[in-house]
């Protein structure tokens, strides 16, 4: 899918990420401080661009997808190649834009975790975008749904978790918190990276529980497989409904 890579938006996105990462690293005197600031920016921007760009791309190529469906191709193959094309383009943009500066300034375990989770996040949101665009027929509505989903995962979800925490503050909430985290890929990535940064002590008792859980190998494996599940589940659902869809 060379077409996606040549898109001006993807090039712009790559350059923007590159600019942000380089300037953050140059502003802070300490590279790991720079990484912490970069983390917050990336966790907002990467999902947003991934989900919006993919949704718009799918809607704009609706007629071409129709033509391809009339060719001797399996529908699931067609949809999977859209998914692979979009997610490789987004991951590539992330790797060039953010991955290379990180490798230049902080080539250690923290940096690598950040590159890995960033790429996973890009793919997760491509997958969610595919699901949103296959389920809604109308373009404006579909893009609206995509923005809402991003808003939910970045902001509303945290609000709900905080609300629950306050309501149930008399009870031990550490275990349920682990489960809540798994329900949001952005939070999960943030925690994975923060723990690698060794500043979990700042997060109080809950941080200690997280450290206990995610710090172990099993915890990391579980967290990674949860992220992979976030890639696979929406993608699988979208393939299933695309196969049955009337075009």
């Amino acid at each position: 899918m060379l077409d996606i890579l040549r898109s001006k938006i993807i090039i712009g996105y790559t350059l923007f990420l590159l600019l942000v990462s380089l300037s953050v690293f140059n502003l802070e005197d300490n590279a790991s401080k720079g990484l912490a600031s970069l983390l917050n920016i990336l966790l907002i921007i990467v999902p947003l661009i991934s989900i919006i760009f993919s949704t718009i791309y799918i809607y704009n190529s609706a007629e071409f997808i129709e033509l391809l469906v009339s060719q001797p191709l399996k529908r699931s193959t067609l949809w999977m190649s859209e998914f692979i094309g979009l997610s490789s383009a987004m991951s590539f943009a992330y790797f060039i834009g953010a991955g290379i500066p990180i490798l230049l300034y902080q080539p250690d375990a923290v940096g690598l975790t950040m590159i890995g989770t960033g790429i996973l996040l890009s793919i997760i949101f491509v997958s969610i975008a595919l699901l949103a665009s296959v389920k809604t027929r109308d373009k404006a509505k579909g893009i609206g749904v995509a923005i809402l989903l991003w808003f939910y995962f970045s902001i509303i979800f945290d609000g709900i978790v905080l609300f629950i925490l306050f309501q149930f503050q008399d009870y031990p909430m550490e275990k349920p918190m682990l489960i809540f985290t798994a329900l949001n890929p952005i939070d999960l990535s943030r925690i994975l990276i923060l723990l690698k940064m060794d500043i979990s002590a700042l997060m109080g008792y809950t941080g200690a529980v997280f450290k206990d859980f995610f710090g172990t190998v099993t915890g990391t494996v579980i967290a990674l497989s949860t992220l992979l599940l976030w890639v696979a589940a929406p993608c699988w659902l979208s393939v299933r409904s695309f196969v049955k869809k009337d075009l």
Partner: protein
Amino acid sequence: MIIATNVNKSFGKLPVLKNISVNCNEGECIALIGPNGSGKTTFIKCLLGMVVPDSGFITFAGKNIIHDWEYRSHIGYMPQIGRYPDNMTIAQVLDMMKDIRKQRNVDETLIHALGLSDILKKRMRTLSGGTRQKVSASLAFLFNPDVLILDEPTAGLDPVSSEILKEKIITEKKNGKLILITSHILSELDDLVTEVMYLQEGQLKFHKSIDVLRKDTGEEKLTRAIAQVMQG
């Protein structure tokens, strides 16, 4: 070749196709006509497996097309609106299609006849609607398919190009291919078609050969024959 039996389809509560049964054979050139919203495009999409009928079935060369996709390698389809990825060139789109079909012997006469061979390097974004239509037409004929399904083929084409396209359709008809055309410009269809299918509000009103239609209505021109049918 294509047999549809009792095909029904509704979008939500709106019935689009009601009990359509037709039989299309090799060497026929069938005009699918009817007012706007009569279900022509939906019927074509059913044949291509893009829309799955609620009930009834369609067979292609004796095989049911549900859950089958390989039969589509025998069909060339030209959609009503052709839109292609903005950043691809015409040559890239053609190559991509060849890659999908994995077919060696391609028929590139239409690409040359329509003058696309000189602008192969142009990006899809820069093309006018008519040129995109030419690309769609060339793609439909590129793989020498047994069945051609053309949805409003001449809409947006200039007179010279639409004449070239008509010539091509006639040649393919003589080669014994099944051709399905929808069009609102009936005068164009006069020297092309052998059969007429008339759809109205999702129902197949009649499916006759053009000679029978001429005899029944006593009109020589298709335009007037259809006008008479619509009034009476």
